[in-house]
């Protein structure tokens, strides 16, 4: 009897790991294909596309596509722009949205529930529907800089950052997470005379690692993959992000090897960011049930 149970356990493990390996393979195939293809000339890449050779570093392997990609487009500039815009937006968004969520969760004020409902309602409004009004507005906003007051935010980093700092989804994530924090902690701090800001900074935020990671990853992906808004507001090359830069490679005769090289390059920051926050992200999914 014990032998049968042992065998069943072994079989279950084999099946489980087979399924997991299969899923891992399905998810990693595109990445492997992209990286391997970035090392092959376009003609070989296309010829290998229908066979297993597509996933193997065989044939004429070199870094030429990477050199050519840097010649075709200012790749470093695009990556810098995206990392800057994404980084600033993520940090500002975490600060602002967590503070807003704190106010919605712990502070009692008139109209709080209605305000939260309105903010959550914005989740169902697709960005495409507000893109044009936002463009018209952004093109007329004032800005005070070194040269005094200027009008219009087009062709700048701020036009890619400011409209995306606050958003309903990030606030919602924080609200959901804050609701699960022990209310006694907050009450005790209030009794001790702590200010709301001190509670937010010294008690709530230190306990919010998982939700910070989740919100950061979701925001990072959304910002890093921005395409529609940047093509509307960045007519000057110096402000363009990576996804607009990708279009530089889609010419009449497409250089697929260069496209794969560029995609490999721009995927690096995303993977690095995800790997850095992976543990906290998984902990957050486990605790809140929110999927990225």
């Amino acid at each position, binding site marked *: 009897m014990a032998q049968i149970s042992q065998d069943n356990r072994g079989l279950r493990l084999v099946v489980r790991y087979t399924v997991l390996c299969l899923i891992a393979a399905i998810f990693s195939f595109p990445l492997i294909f992209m990286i391997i293809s970035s090392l092959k000339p376009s003609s070989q890449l296309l*010829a290998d596309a229908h066979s297993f050779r597509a996933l193997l570093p065989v044939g004429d392997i070199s870094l030429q596509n990477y050199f050519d990609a840097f010649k*075709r*487009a200012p790749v470093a500039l695009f990556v810098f722009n995206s990392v800057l815009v994404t980084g600033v937006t993520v940090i500002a968004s975490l600060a602002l949205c967590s503070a807003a969520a704190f106010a919605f969760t712990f502070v009692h004020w008139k109209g709080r529930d209605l305000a939260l409902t309105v903010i959550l309602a914005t989740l169902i409004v697709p960005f495409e529907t507000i893109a044009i009004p936002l*463009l*018209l507005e952004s093109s007329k906003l004032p800005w005070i800089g070194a040269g005094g007051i200027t009008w219009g935010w087009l062709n700048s980093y701020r036009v890619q950052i400011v409209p995306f700092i606050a958003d309903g989804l990030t606030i919602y994530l924080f609200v959901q997470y804050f609701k699960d924090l022990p209310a006694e902690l907050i009450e005790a701090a209030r009794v001790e005379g702590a200010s709301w800001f001190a509670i937010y900074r010294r008690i709530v935020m230190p306990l919010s690692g998982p939700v910070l990671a989740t919100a950061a990853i979701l925001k990072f992906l959304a910002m890093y993959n921005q395409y529609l808004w940047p*093509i*509307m507001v960045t007519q000057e*090359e110096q402000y363009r992000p990576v996804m607009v830069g990708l279009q530089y490679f889609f010419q009449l005769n*497409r250089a697929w090897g260069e496209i794969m090289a560029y995609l490999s390059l721009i995927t690096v920051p995303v993977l690095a960011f995800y790997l850095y926050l992976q543990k906290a992200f998984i902990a957050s999914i486990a605790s809140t049930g929110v999927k990225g």
Partner: protein
Amino acid sequence: MKHLKWSVAAVALIGWGTLASATETLTMWYHGAGNEVESKIINQIITDFNASQADYAVELQSFPQAAYNDSVTAGALAGNLPDILDVDGPNMPNWAWAGYMQPLTIDESKIATFLPGTKGMYNGKLYSIGLWDAAISLVTRKSTLEALSLRTPTLEQPWTAEEFEAALKAAKDSGKYKYALDLGMAWKGEWYPYAFSPFLQSFGGDIVDRTTYASAEGALNGDAAQAWGKWWQHLFTDGYAQADQDGADRDNGFGAGEYAFSWNGNWAALGALKAFDDTLFLPAPDFGKGPKIGAASWQFGVSAKSAHPEGAAKFIEFALQDKYLADFSNGIGLIPATPSAAALVDNYKEGGPLAVFFGLSNAQGTLRPVTPGYVVQAKVFEKAANDIAHGANVAATLDAAVDEIDADITKNNGYAAQ
């Protein structure tokens, strides 16, 4: 004396300042970002123009082609258009109608010899002019025609519908090819109206009734259009062509011998010549109303908001020199706009390997509907052609397409002048 010296210096400074500020900056948007050759040529033209006179200095901002139209639309909405724009030929009427562009005032004697497809005319006025055109041909091999015992069609005597059908059947029956015909179904978007609506026009139909541009009724669902739809569908149901094509097959299929014939543009011609030394570029077949191919490529025009339209026109006129037309053709393989420029290009001069495309463009080039509604009609046609290729009922699909086009025309008040 001292005061006099200071006065002279001040006057000189003011004079210099006035002279310096007399150079007006003209901004220009171009769709060629990412194309090193194209960027080099356009930058050379700008450098030459800026050095040739002191009134204007052109500053270039390049965009990737796929993002260009959206950027221009956004720029127009935000009141942020440049002085000089480039525009894809069939989109020009929409941009003119929408108030993005103004008529182009250049000496028309300078464009008298330009290919018809390079002149962007709308409502009787010139709005844009192209330095090149593009053309499509039926690419095959001499050895293929010989093996299948087919006549070599010429510009004067293209294949008839029956001859084309016989050619496809012979290729299919030979069993040597994956498909007889590569239509480029892997390419989407503008390729459909550019490459396939000329078949419809050769049948006698059209995307819209060009006599009024007020409806597609009869043009896109009349007898001729129905005949086109049935012919188009049979290409796929009878196995002559594939309705879904892999991008790799489009790029490499003809060179790999998978297709007997390939419907492709002159931009891919050098690759085909490299693949086979007996490559032939055949004219479009005549389905009854004459052989037709698409015409009009990217062109230069002046934005409606330009404060210096005369300067913008001056730049465009400067760019129309044969040497620049030849540079673009040498660089990106497109057809030079004039015979004199073609004579400067090895590929397009008489006897050149691509000279046939100049003749094709001149003889068979047909503009897509010259109406602001084209931008919508192109998408409707693309969907209809794609649905029919995938087995949709021809009559119902074309009727639905007509309804959609007519509804758009009505919604926009017939695209009357704004």
